């Protein structure tokens, strides 16, 4: 029993990483209706920028805020420059664009900061949290930040005019345009916010997985899986999905014989797919009815 609770706790701790990433994924999915394959790389690049700022002697929180602002602007710029011209192109062409962006960011980060692993500081310290060996204060802080972020997003979307406008632009673009919402800029705003959330995820994850250009590869896959499991239309679902995927993965690794680290990912994905077969819109996703 103790092994079980310990594994669940450890799962929640890694789940916080996935939840953060899943939030960013849902954010952009809400804005543009696609999964952005370059999201992880964008988060990685933001994290490198904050690292660089700290190397130049800027204190952690100042670098944190500055990175958020820069990422927000960069996200909007990427949308305006690279993806707005593709707005009328087929969806699959857009996906190819994401893959191109992935290659560009990954390779430039490798050239600027090279591929050696770097230490990344944590603002929360890494002592055991409340005497538990499994969760460190950093991981507890990460869970806290994820929950705060989720609350913030909830209030933003439910109670602000611009949040409402973004939701309208995403769900019924034509009607939104008719009532005077600039849907094209709402998409850009969605990119900016998703990039900023990705930056937060990256900066929280970096102390755990260490900083290097390929740090986000695995995390993004779990983030996608978490977002899809929770339902791509629900930020709350994404966070729950993130924690569930973390717990799934740990329990599968502990209790199913023959599952080493190698098979953890396939098993977690297989579980998610079984859930999707039963609930195709994810656990908390809205069921969308199609008109013929």
């Amino acid at each position, binding site marked *: 029993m103790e092994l079980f609770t310990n594994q669940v706790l450890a799962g929640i701790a890694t789940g916080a990483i996935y939840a953060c990433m899943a939030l960013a994924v849902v954010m952009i999915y809400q804005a543009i209706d*696609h*999964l952005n394959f370059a999201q992880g790389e964008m988060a990685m690049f933001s994290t490198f920028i904050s690292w660089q700022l700290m190397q130049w002697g800027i204190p952690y929180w100042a670098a944190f805020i500055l990175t958020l602002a820069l990422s927000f602007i960069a996200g909007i710029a990427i949308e305006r420059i*690279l993806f707005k*011209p*593709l707005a*009328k*192109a*087929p*969806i*699959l*062409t857009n*996906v*190819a*664009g994401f*893959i*191109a*962006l*992935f*290659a*560009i960011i*990954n*390779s*430039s980060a*490798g*050239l600027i900061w090279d591929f050696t692993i770097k230490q990344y500081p944590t603002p929360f310290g890494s002592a055991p949290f409340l005497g538990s060996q499994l969760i460190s204060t950093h991981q507890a802080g990460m869970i806290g930040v994820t929950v705060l972020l989720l609350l913030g997003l*909830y209030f933003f*979307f*439910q109670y602000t005019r611009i949040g409402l406008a973004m939701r309208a632009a995403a*769900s*019924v673009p034509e009607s939104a345009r008719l009532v005077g919402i600039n849907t094209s800029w709402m998409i850009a705003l969605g990119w900016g916010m998703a990039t900023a959330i990705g930056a937060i995820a990256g900066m929280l994850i970096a102390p755990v997985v260490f900083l290097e250009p390929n740090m986000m590869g695995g995390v993004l*896959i779990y983030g*996608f*899986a978490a977002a*899809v499991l929770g339902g*791509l*239309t*629900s*930020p*709350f679902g994404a966070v729950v999905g993130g924690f569930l995927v973390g717990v799934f993965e740990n329990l599968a690794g502990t209790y199913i014989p023959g599952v080493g680290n*190698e*098979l953890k*990912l*396939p098993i977690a*994905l*297989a579980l*998610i*797919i079984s859930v*999707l*077969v039963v609930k*195709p819109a994810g656990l908390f996703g*809205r*069921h*969308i*009815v*199609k*008109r*013929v």
Partner: protein
Amino acid sequence: MSAVEEVVTEAPAVEAVPKRAMTLGTGTSLLVLAALIIMPIFVKNFIIFQMTMLLIYGLAVLALNILTGGSGQFSLGQSAFYAVGAYTTAVLMEHFEVNYALTLPIAGIVCFGFGFLFGQPALRLSGVYLALATFALATAMPQLLKLNFLEHWTGGVQGLVVTKPDAPFGLKMSQDMWLYYFSLVVVIGIYLLAVNLLRSRSGRAFMAIRDNEIAASAMGVDVALYKTLAFGVSAAITGIAGSLGAIAVQFVAPDSYTITLAVSLFLGMVVGGVGWLPGSIVGAAFIIFVPNIAEGISKGLSGAVFGVLLFLVIYLVPHGARQVAILGQQLAGKLRKN
């Protein structure tokens, strides 16, 4: 965040390509064919090898094109089918000493079964969900091939070495050249089959599902059957491509068949034009040669150069090589009128 059901009139994810627009005219086809037959006589063995790989990747892209361009289903798991085909051939050739040519149909049948079965749970999923499911398959495959209890057959992480066949009937041809012509015959055969499949009743059913699934089922198309069938056919063709690939490269190992391969095949399809079968070979050329070109321009930034080139292509021709072909046709038509 509300529980209200949303009603949307969704544009299909894949554009409707009329079936006539899916192929080339007879004249152009014969020209391309003639070029493909004559070329190896004038070039070095290494280039012949690259052209063989071009045909093989072209075949794999074609398979994805039937699935996505034909039936509107998206797959990031093609590398798994490719791996199954490659391993079937390698195991049959090395452990059972089956003739290489015979392993191709066997690989095709094995992959058809595999794809058809995988299509069953995938039936309930579409769009991003299907992408995730197929993606899971692609990430699981290399790990499954490394499993301990299969190691006796698959050679584990080490993989298997495959012997390259000599030209038969005492033909005075290098191994590379023989393999090229062998692949060419297989590819042309499958291309013709694929074109005919899309023109048949089944092909029309695929396209009806692609354009509007609900309308298709209302008109009496057995959606479940045809969707899984499309998966099966696509997997079978990918598997045959995998077999040829194993023979050409003379080596199979789990890490040659990662998600990167599936992503490349996807890019090949987009660059060639989704739903335009002859574009597959153009797409294959892109995924084989452009990374090399990028490496040539800058070693350290090869990924970035590749990305920029890819962006250039999708800006200039968002519909891929098909768009170029259509433009060419229109130009030719104008010239003829003058």
